[in-house]
């Protein structure tokens, strides 16, 4: 079960993911990101403070946007991941492919730097 909240701060879309993302709920994450892209956001932060679990279905959603973001010059940064969640990213070597920061300020800073 996952809840997704979006809020906008000075042109940046912040997607907060609350709960667990598995094969039954990954579609929610996909829809939220697609919506953000559709609305034209160039900086997307994913707040993972309250993300308790993610399976490959959720990781696959992030992966599936990598090329589109590269083409459209959209910067996505994940932040606030719990150790057990980071571990899942690391098993797959995904931590190298995605932008991940400790907290919102650092994530925002990176998104701004990459946008220049």
């Amino acid at each position, binding site marked *: 079960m996952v809840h997704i909240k979006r809020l906008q701060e000075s042109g940046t879309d912040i997607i907060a993911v609350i709960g667990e993302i*598995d094969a039954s709920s990954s579609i929610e994450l996909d829809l939220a990101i697609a919506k953000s892209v559709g609305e034209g956001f160039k900086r997307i932060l994913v707040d993972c403070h309250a993300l308790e679990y993610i399976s490959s279905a959720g*990781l696959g959603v992030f992966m599936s946007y990598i090329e589109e973001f590269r083409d459209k010059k959209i910067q996505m940064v994940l932040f606030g991941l719990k150790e057990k969640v980071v*571990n*899942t990213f690391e098993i797959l070597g995904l931590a190298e492919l995605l932008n991940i920061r400790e907290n919102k300020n650092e994530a925002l800073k990176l998104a701004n730097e990459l946008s220049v």
Partner: protein
Amino acid sequence: MNYRYNIACSLSNLKGIRDFVRNTLNENHVPELQISAIVLALDEMCSNLMIHAHHCNPNHFLELHINHPGKGTYVFEIIDDGSVFDINQFTEPGMDSLVHEKRKGGLGIRLVKSIMDKIEYTSEGGKNICRLTKEV
């Protein structure tokens, strides 16, 4: 020690599988990070089976057994009567091709193979048994 759990093949039941595995391993004082990895591997295996072998038909069932034969060995058996979905037969795609083809699948198999020490398939009395072994 022998734990059993029956699950209908609906993705909404994955949460129940995770809770069952987590609670069982907690009872046996397995370290938290190890538990998280094992829970993930079982979620991946069961969701793969539900989707590919049972097409998410809630009238089909999986049976999950957890055995702890001793020391740090844990054996997880997923028993079903669908078509065999043998992940040893799949070569997991490279990360580059996953990114390029925008594939949302293929990562799960990679996860299970990274987390578990042994993955075996057998067949007994018309049932498929997928046996995953992990040393913690």
